[in-house]
């Protein structure tokens, strides 16, 4: 069946096709509970992603209190973008909404690492499972650290039920 709305689960809204492919790699990780994650169709830009989230998902997050929501956006070199997005998220659901992304754009990360998007996504998933930081510490991803810790605390229990190293 699809994700169980009444059990803890995570919805992911990728901004674009590159982010979608990163998530594809993430969800093929053997340790991931794929029944607890649902990837939504790409939004087509970070501003559209935020707008769609505010228009269509906020109310449902209030209805389904086991739902978590991840906006996967490009930061395009703008280190203030997370705050800009976070400031628009209603306070009553803000602890279940997360914003992650590449500091510039995924294409730059792909070129720098010399790997395809899926392999990068799979590596990031493995590090989440093992609670490690190698790829996540990359200069284009390190800015996510505080948000990643917050996300891990919220989803790790059900997303990686067969846990790796303890945090």
């Amino acid at each position, binding site marked *: 069946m699809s994700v169980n709305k009444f059990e803890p689960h995570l919805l992911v809204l990728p901004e674009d*096709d590159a982010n*979608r492919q990163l998530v594809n790699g993430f*969800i*093929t990780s053997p340790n991931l509970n794929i029944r607890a994650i649902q990837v939504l169709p790409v939004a087509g830009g970070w501003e559209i992603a935020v707008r769609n989230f505010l228009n269509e998902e906020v109310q449902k997050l209030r209805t389904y209190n086991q739902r978590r929501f991840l906006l996967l956006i490009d930061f395009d070199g703008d280190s203030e973008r997370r705050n800009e997005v976070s400031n628009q998220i209603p306070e009553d659901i803000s602890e279940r909404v997360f914003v992650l992304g590449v500091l510039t754009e995924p294409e730059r990360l792909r070129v720098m690492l010399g790997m395809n998007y899926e392999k990068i996504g799979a590596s990031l998933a493995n590090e989440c499972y093992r609670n490690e930081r190698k790829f996540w510490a990359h200069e284009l991803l390190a800015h996510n650290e505080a948000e990643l810790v917050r996300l891990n605390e919220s989803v790790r229990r059900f997303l990686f039920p067969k846990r790796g190293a303890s945090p």
Partner: protein
Amino acid sequence: MIQRLYAHNYRCFENFELNLKSISSCLLIGKNGSGKSAVGDVLELFQKIGRGTNRVGELLTPTDFAWGNQTLPMRFELEALIEQRPFKYEIAFELPNGFRELRVFEEKLSVENTPIYTRDLAQVTVFRTNNNSEAKFLVDWHLVALPIISASSEKDPVQVFKSWLSMLTILSPIPNLISGDSTSETLHLTKDGANFSDWLEGLLGAFPAAYADLDNSLKQVLPDFKDFQRPSTGITSKKLVVQFVRERQSFRVDFEHLSSGEKCFFIWSAILAANKHLGGLFCFWDEADSHLSLSEIGHFISALRQSYQQEGQIILTTHSEEVVRKFSHENTFYLGRKSHLEPTIIRPLSEVYTGKNIVHDLLLDDIEL
């Protein structure tokens, strides 16, 4: 794992080559008639040879020549990594003037670039590397040699390759044909899935622990699924019965009365279990999303990809945008042809697609090869 598949002068294929090195799961997309299912037909040809069909007339007909071009041979090649050793099997057919049935023109099996046997029309030469000798014999040119070449042991490359070919699983299930009755055990699932119950018996007979994996997968997609049983209905026959339970009330239903999508869940869960317990099962699944509700497709495909990421190899075809989204550019192959008079072209999206929304561009048929 299949490394490379080649077909020439067969239906819509001319110098058609599918390279799958290091690809554990991939998706074939393209318009109707682009040749996606024909890839499965090529694989089925090899599977049939592996399962012992050697009469050429049972494998191909003169109508299989591309655009009726009977002046050139029809050629197939399969390269695969089996037990860490590269195998290559080549076979070509021709239809001389006055013939009604195709005949074998050339045939060759090699391992690590060393020929195991070669064949030129009726003449077969088997090479014995241990004593540097060769044996020659004649074979009816309407028979494929591979099924009739005897192997000296289970580890003989001929036997290893035949066994591997026979286990290729080509699927295009027709749920209405899947009854739930079994009369024997097999590890060879038919393309239409009609012998699913026999295959399930074979799988559980060989790997009893696979039941737990089936049970686990089915409970994810059918929350009220309790178990399935296979009571005897005769001396050698059994019937597949599925039990559902909710709030202490249970309900048993014959497998044949399940919906088409529910039958596909059983096939899916059995493929996942077979892949795990066989240590890797090759599977080609044509339009795997058929019969599934939209909310199921994503997890159905992701579970397959997750399983095959660890072992085995799977090729899927689809027209579903949800399936397209579950693959990425390096493992999605686009097939197309300009008209029915031109051959299929195949390219990975990573080589031909630079757009930003693949689903959108597929919808508008905006992908150029």
